[in-house]
């Protein structure tokens, strides 16, 4: 069952990032406001362009009429007041609707999870150019699980909402967390702590990416949210909490990995590798992609990445270590065991 679900989750990588395909209550409510304001502005657009075209047509007829200058009209106070008051009224109504939506989608400082819900709390740390997730609490239980780039969340069910509360921080420059189908974006600003939330009943993968320019590889700071069946999510979380598997067959690879400077930046829990500067690799193989979503997590891509990250993601902060072919094979083999 679990395997089957995993397989279905895999297949639903929708490439749709449209703000008009909401999959969460707040994205839905923003779409409603968007449609309303599009209708209002569309109406004003038609009126103004209509008057413009009408004036042009009338004036061209008049142009043929004669030599004399047309009557000079200096202005009219009642007309001026009329076209000031009408838009004011529209703005006032729009303002009220905007305020209502604001309170629907923006977390306030006093907001609590609804009763009967199973909330998940995760801290998201923006880093040049990848995402770090620290799982803190799910359904009342404390966790301390660190992973990267692919955010797994439990999907909601009828009567059991599973809201996801994100605490947003940055380790370097300003980033912005944005998964259009789930919620509007919120910035990750160094020196500040921001909050956002979403929940979704839809199972599948939701794509997003960093939405604030953050340096060379801003374009490839991709992110994905995987909304799993709750049971599947719990299994995933429990697995992530474990230290790395230690397969005897990969012992040589492990030695090669630990002998290299990989360990200065990367952590593999349960080994001496405790770097915190780069993605946690403890369960690397539970992720579908590498390089924050740029390439698939396959043996070939992993080897290509290790051989020269700058070829895959030019400008990224992982240098090329010029590993020998033998080390490349060994380390790739070892990392492939980190399920």
């Amino acid at each position, binding site marked *: 069952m679990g395997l089957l679900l995993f397989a279905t989750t895999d297949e639903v990588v929708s490439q749709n990032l449209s703000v008009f395909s909401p999959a969460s209550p707040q994205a839905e409510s*923003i779409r409603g406001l968007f449609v309303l304001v599009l209708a209002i502005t569309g109406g004003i*657009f038609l009126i103004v362009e209509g008057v413009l075209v009408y004036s042009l047509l009338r004036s061209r007829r008049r142009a043929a009429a004669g030599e004399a200058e047309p009557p000079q009209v*200096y*202005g009219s106070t009642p007309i*001026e007041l009329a*076209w000031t008051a009408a838009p004011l009224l529209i703005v006032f109504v729009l303002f009220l609707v905007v305020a209502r939506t*604001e309170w629907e989608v923006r977390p306030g400082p006093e907001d609590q999870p609804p009763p009967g819900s199973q909330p998940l709390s995760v801290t998201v740390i923006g880093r040049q150019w990848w995402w770090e997730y620290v799982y803190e609490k799910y359904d009342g239980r404390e966790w301390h699980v660190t992973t990267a780039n692919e955010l797994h969340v439990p999907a909601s069910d009828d009567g059991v909402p599973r809201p996801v509360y994100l605490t947003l921080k940055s380790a370097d420059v300003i980033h912005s967390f944005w998964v259009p189908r789930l919620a509007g974006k919120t910035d990750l600003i160094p020196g500040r702590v921001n909050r956002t939330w979403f929940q979704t009943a839809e199972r599948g993968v939701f794509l997003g990416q960093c939405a604030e320019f953050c340096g060379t590889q*801003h*374009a490839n700071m991709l992110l994905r949210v995987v909304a799993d069946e709750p049971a599947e999510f719990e299994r995933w979380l429990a697995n992530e909490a474990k230290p790395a598997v230690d397969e005897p067959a990969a012992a040589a690879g492990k030695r090669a990995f630990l002998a290299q400077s990989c360990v200065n930046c990367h952590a593999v829990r349960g080994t001496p590798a405790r770097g915190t500067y780069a993605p946690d690799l403890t369960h690397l193989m539970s992720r579908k992609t590498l390089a924050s979503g740029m390439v698939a997590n396959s043996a070939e891509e992993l080897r290509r990445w290790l051989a020269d990250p700058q070829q895959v993601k030019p400008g990224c902060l992982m240098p090329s270590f010029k590993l020998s072919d033998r080390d490349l094979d060994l380390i790739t083999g070892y990392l492939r065991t980190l399920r």
Partner: protein
Amino acid sequence: MATAVPELSRERLSLVAGLHEWVVTVDHKKIGVMYVLMAIAFLLIGGLEAVLMRVQLLWPRADFLPPLTFNQFFTLHGTTMVFFMGMPILIGMANYLVPLMIGARDMAFPRLNAMGFWVTLFGGLLVYASFFVPGGPPAIGWFAYAPLTEKTFARGPGVDCWALGLLVSGVGTIAAGVNFVATIVGMRAPGMKLRQVPFFVWTILGTSIQILVAIPPLTAALVMLIFDRHLGAHFFDPQAGGSAYLWMHLFWFFGHPEVYILVLPAFGMISEVVPVFSRKVLFGYEFMALATMAIVFISLGVWAHHMFTVGMSRTLDMFFAGASMLVGIPTGIKIFNWLATLYGGKLVLKSPLLFALGFLSMFVIGGLTGIILACAAVNFQIHDTYFVVGHFHWVLIGGTVFGVFAGLHYWYPKVTGRMLSERLAKWQFWLLLVGFILTFAPMHVAGVLGMPRRIYTYEPGRGWDLWNQLATVGALIQAPSYLIFAFNLVWSLRHGELAGDDPWDAWTLEWATTSPPPSYNFESVPVVRSRRPLWDLKHPDDPDWKYE
């Protein structure tokens, strides 16, 4: 000895003397022309950067430009178009026109005026000098958010070139603002009340006030940034207790009024062109002036609508959303008054009006997408996407650029004594209109489909390809229109029809003097009794002052 000077060297001497005259001039007209020429040169450079970026975005995962180069180009493109194209072309035209329109001999402070131009030009050159420093131009975006600008993340001197360039040119802009206020307030022709100046002068007064309020905070922020980078200060460095958030506020406190600095003068040009080419007086002058000042005031309180996603409180979000929507009211008043001026007029469909009509039909759209963006919750979704890129280009090209082209076609005969070629102007207009729509309309769609701004490449299969390809085709259609314009400027200088003093049968004072005007502008300044002194002269039986 004198007879021994060969012919060639005498020619060279006169060339040097000619150049020297331009370098040392304090004549507002020469300074105005130099501003405009500088702006056009930077327009072509900034435009080339844009075209190269559009080529990179033609296909997903393309590698026409490396990531760093692309990021440097969008930084330079934005900086160039705002600081070294937009403001200089408007300040230059105002420099040329304001003294003529109010019957003055020059600006209030001619030497300050010259200094303003030269520091603006050298500011621009300083920014571009970053091509020759280690690490090359800055890759920080025109908004230069901290801490990406700190030494930790931007080691090379590119950011310093950028900061110093803007600092220096900002001084020039502030000088121009002071000068315009002093000129407009103190140097009007005898009899001309402030409520009788040509409408363009009102908008320059509004723009100057905004310059004086908005540019100094930017200057201060740039000084703080330079302190951070070189003197060990930590204003914007969160690692050492500084605040990245502070830079945002300082920058946008400048950055939003800046948009109105760039568009108000274009409003002014439209307000001159539309009446003359529909042969009617400007409808509702007082309300237009009031609306201009309302825009000046309200737009000083909307800056944080660039910051809805930084996690402000809901109350602050609503304040800035409300204020931003409110700016739409005076802007709407202006549009309605222009339409009312057109209505019942006798249209003269020459190039200035063509561009003015382009402005009227396009600027409305940019204004309305602005209302959409002001809705805070919608902004959470489309902020920092291509929707925003589409929106502000629609305002700055559909508004400022179309307005400026209307103005340049209208006043070129005054400056040179010759008419621009109408034929070339029509080619330019239609290529610009079609290319502009095709470039920027698809960007709105890409943004709504989730495409963020400032990305050097994008993933295939997200439905963004087509919209990017249309935008690139649009850019390639647009590009020649600017080249045609540049060619027309040069070609008509020699081959254009002779213009005479008043080719458009217009009504404001600049048309009362010769084309081009003498260095002292007017031999004798006519006494002004109304907003249209030349209408009064041409229609002694039915003068304007009877109705004002």
